[in-house]
């Protein structure tokens, strides 16, 4: 169980980790498709690069973002003793 005085540092830590996970992801999500056309001239795995990055690349970025978020948040929970007691 978390101690009372740990709650503030825990929440500060959580907030920063949320922002550092969310903001780069949103930025990529907004910017990447806009440059797809220019990137399409190059090839990757036989795909036009712009299409590959906007479809497969963005999905891969989402998966990596989510799982690294989950792992880091779990580490933060354990560091501050905020995890569920099993």
């Amino acid at each position: 169980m978390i101690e009372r005085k740990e709650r503030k540092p825990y929440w500060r830590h959580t907030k920063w980790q949320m922002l550092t996970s969310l903001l780069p992801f949103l930025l990529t999500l907004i910017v990447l498709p806009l440059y797809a056309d220019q990137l399409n001239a190059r090839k990757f795995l036989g795909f036009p690069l712009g299409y590959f990055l906007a479809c497969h690349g963005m999905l891969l970025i989402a998966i990596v973002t989510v799982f690294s978020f989950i792992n880091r948040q779990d580490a933060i929970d354990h560091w501050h003793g905020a995890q569920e007691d099993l």
Partner: protein
Amino acid sequence: MPHRHTPALANPLIGIYFGIFGASLGAIVVLLLIFEQLGVTDRALKAAMAFGSTALFAAIGAGAYTGRMREFVNAGRRVPAFYNGLSLTVAAFGGAGLTGFAGAMFLVGFDMLFLGLGIVAGLTVMVMLIAPFLRKFGAPTVPSYLGLRFDSGPVRLAAASVAVVPLMLVLMAEIKLAVLALAWLTPMSGGSATVFVVGVIVATIVPGGIRSLSWSSAAQALTLLVAVVVPAAIAAVIETNLPFGQLSHGPVMRAVARAEAAQDIPLPIAGLLTFDLPGSGLQVITGRYGTTFGTIGPLAFVLATLSVLVGIAGSPGLLARSVTTPTVFDTRKSIGWAVVLVALLITTFSAIAVFQRHYLMTEIAGQPTGSPPRAVQLLIELGHAAIEPRQAKIAPTSLLIERDATLVAMPVLLGLPRVVTSLVAVGILAAALAAAATSLAQLGLILAEDVINAPGGWRASDLQRLMTCRASIALLAIAAGVAAALASGDPLVLVLHALAFSGSTLFPVLVLSIWWKRLSALGALAGLAAGFGAAVAAVTAADVAGVGLPAVLAPVAAAPCAVAAAMIVSSLSPVPGRHVLEIVRDMRIPGGETVHDRELRQARQRSGLGT
């Protein structure tokens, strides 16, 4: 008495149960493949496929019967992360979303990616900003969370009335799509199909509420994955010699681009804010597959991605489905699984679209209109395609394909056995049933728990509450069935409208209620009202008067209105009391008893009802 709150443990046999389900489904398919070779009629095969699978789903729902309230409203919080992720996947995409997405990917190409990216990004934002905190809170519906969070009945009622709109729109869209899929498989159509679909959904979720929903929609998600991924793998082997079409359709895509350039397929350029989705029904390809921003402008693409994002992240049906896991950590993991599975579906659909385009450009285009290839003739007989205008030779832009039937058309085009076509149709039917059941279960719980039983729900006996829930689910199902049969409308557009509403109203208030302690009950009310008002104004302006932003982009204008209204009114109203602030602080910490259970227990103790 010390109160222990160890998380409930999942059933260790669940993997075996789903193994049995998968084996039965596989057995049905293999058996029917044998029957097909033996010369059984197409009609009997399709009917066996449709009724066999729906009977399996309904049996799973009925088998998860429960007489206990906490099982009925949140499956006893015992659904393991992966299975929860499965049902989230199928509910996030839904039948309407996936047929619309796959069809429009074929017709439009790149521009349609906004929907897939929006869903994946919406789940990503949901896991970071909202879902784990709602799991710790433990309320079974979004309105009951907001009501308890602000300790305010009016907020609960306002949230309930706002949440009903997107849920009802999704429910209607999915019933329409299930009726369409049923018409592909059985002679039923129109009224009788609607009655059958509503009956199946009610029979699936009335026995055990969310418990039935969890297990039946996990099974439906597995059906969908098998029905989409396996035929796509066969198509990939035919086209590229590799079974992983998701990663190997690149060279085919370049061949498509060369053929498109050689045959002078138009290369439209959309204005910044143009937003032209292909409608349901017979449609023709609008441009080249890989080129960007031909039907949806660049600004509209970004805004539409963000609108779908907030719509998914604030969707009351999905949020309530993500809190049935044993722990907060499992909630995060289940959404992670959903992101992986949705990504798998999106890449599969893009591969299928490319293979179909390739077939269109190389095998169909240039053939004489009088004697088209056999597959095209079959599609025309089924009503999924038409050739217009009828010149001497088929041009790529003169073959019309039904948008929602492009997935089902794929096995026909490739000449796969008819049972595979039925399997794809069953996958779509399963997805539509699952998404409809998710919305219906939420609607029923909201009506029963947040409206009828709201003021003193904890006083009522379990039996009374269960019966209210069951009755509301059945009543709402009938109402939605009637509405779906009467209202005309494109299922994909209905789903996009639903996302616009949940993104405009619930998303801003939910995020603020977790991340901003100072948000007061009055602020939340103002946020909900402003978001809803602005969304209604934007959607009416777009749909009725044809001015302003397209209706799908309503959250772009409405969500900032909601945030501004909530923040201004909160700053002007008194600081929330100590009790409410303590609830918010507690909700942010994963460990410990859920806030909802604790408040209910304390309310019962105070009134002497016991625990």
